[in-house]
């Protein structure tokens, strides 16, 4: 079952990388300030990382 594991983890990695490439202005549009905690790219990257860990653990 190495093929599905590789496909899933690769898919998650691509999503995480794509999220990190979203332009800063687009992320903060509508936000009342530009504090670091509002940077949704890091929220998305963290969420993806946790999923990579869980899917690797239960592979």
């Amino acid at each position, binding site marked *: *079952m190495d093929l*599905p*594991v590789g*496909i*899933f983890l690769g*898919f*998650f990695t691509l*999503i995480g990388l*794509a*999220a990190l490439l*979203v332009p800063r202005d*687009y*992320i*903060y*549009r*509508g*936000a*009342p300030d530009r504090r670091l905690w*509002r940077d*949704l790219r890091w*929220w*998305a990257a963290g*969420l*993806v990382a*946790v*999923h990579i860990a*869980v*899917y690797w653990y*239960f*592979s």
Partner: protein
Amino acid sequence: MEWIDIFIVAVYLIGLLLFGLWFGRFVKTEKDYFLAGRTLPFWAIGMSIVVSDIGAVDFVSLCGSSYRYGIAAANMDWIGTMPAIVLATFIFIPYYWRSGVYSVPEYLGRRFGASVRALQSVAWILFLVVNLGAVFWASAGLFDELLGGRILEAIGFTAAPGDPDGTYHRKLFYVVLTAAFTGLYTISGGLAAVVYTDVVQLIIMFIGAFFVVGLGLAHPDVGGFAGLKESLAAQHPDHLTLFLPHDTATPFPWTGVLFGLALVQAPAYFMANQTIVQRTLGARDEWAAKAGTLFGGVLKFFIPILVVLPGLIALRLVPDLEDADKAYAQLMTILLPAGLRGLVFAAFLAAMMSSVDSILASAATLVTRDCLMAWSHLAPSPRRLLAIGRAVTVLLLVGGIGLAATMETELFAGIYEILQSSLAIIQGPTWALLVMGMFWRRATPMGGLAGLVAGLALSIGLTVWHKAGFEPALFHAEDPFMFIAFDSFSFTLLVIAIASLFTPPVAPEALRGLVFRSYRYDDELQDAIESRQRSDDDSSES
């Protein structure tokens, strides 16, 4: 359950009702009612998304699935959420929010025309109404199992003609009770009441469910997570992998999970299901809409811990259950002392009521705005629309109760089984419409309509073929709806593309704000549109 548990549940219900009713004082227009006046903060949106998604039936069915098939059931909330949530956060939700629509069919109507809007809204309304009846009845069954007839016996009811043990009438009583509590605050406070009661309900749900997991793992026969993993590895090794083979008979083949669930059903759910999207449309600003969606994804990560892990614990503690769907109820009986049982039952109620209030709010929006207003071409005042919206909500509630009361008839059992599949039937074509509409400017209204009709026809055909057991069998899985969703999605994409190429293109000005990247580099246009939206809001409120 003991009387202390019933007391805890009563305090929870009355407190929640009063809290929800309080929001009625802030509802003056239909925008307040359907979109909470566009004031929602991100954390409330995220919490509401999660608890609206998870119902009492999910506790039962997902726990039962993990009892039968293992941790693979968690795919529904892990890969079945994260990719779709990230895509929704960064592309679809911002465009919905910016366009000022009240519903997904309204967006699809602007993109593909009135016929697509009408078909989509009718399909989703049918699904939501039947779902409402089903949630009422399934939850009433659960409450009857846990509470029995104590409340009714206390007021002198035990049986009725044609119902010697009183089961049917007890369930009907629980349906009406639940409908009354949920309906009162939803009709009074609209989306704001729904979302903020969802916040309370999520907290209760998480606390109660974590108690079950904690007590379960601490049980001497389980031995913590390590002990659980060791015993499952010895007796049910296939229960410890998220990746089941393609030709498995379980509902979770890895190919179906990836292509059907992650790439089609989940995106369709998080970007086309009005019950999920509506709270993001009520966000106070674009950032809150995006952040609320993503925060919902973060919280959703914990759901398998609360509903799937108990199924594995139940497999260890009660290994010979005939009906796996009774696993969660069995755990509550084994693990929870009096008092705590009431708290966990309140968690169940929270999950169920949040689903009901979300279905009501979203169905009322679709009926009022996508059917009544769109088809009649009337433009009533915001206050009159508010009254219409509330009246529609009452009718939907009554309809849901009526449907729930018919759930045990043979006719409805057959219809219900087909309509339970309806989500998978409409998700594939709907997602294809959204993908083409958002990313391909060349997609035309006639292309969209042709694709939707063709895609629905294929979904229905494949579902009927499988359910009827016709030969040749098209799928290995006993529940192949992930594959049906992917097949219908692919087919709809193809038909939209071909039909669009044979019909005249849409003028670029008509696509502004509806297609990806039509706003990103046009800040002047974006500011002009937001300024117009603000002046529209000011004139409607005056």
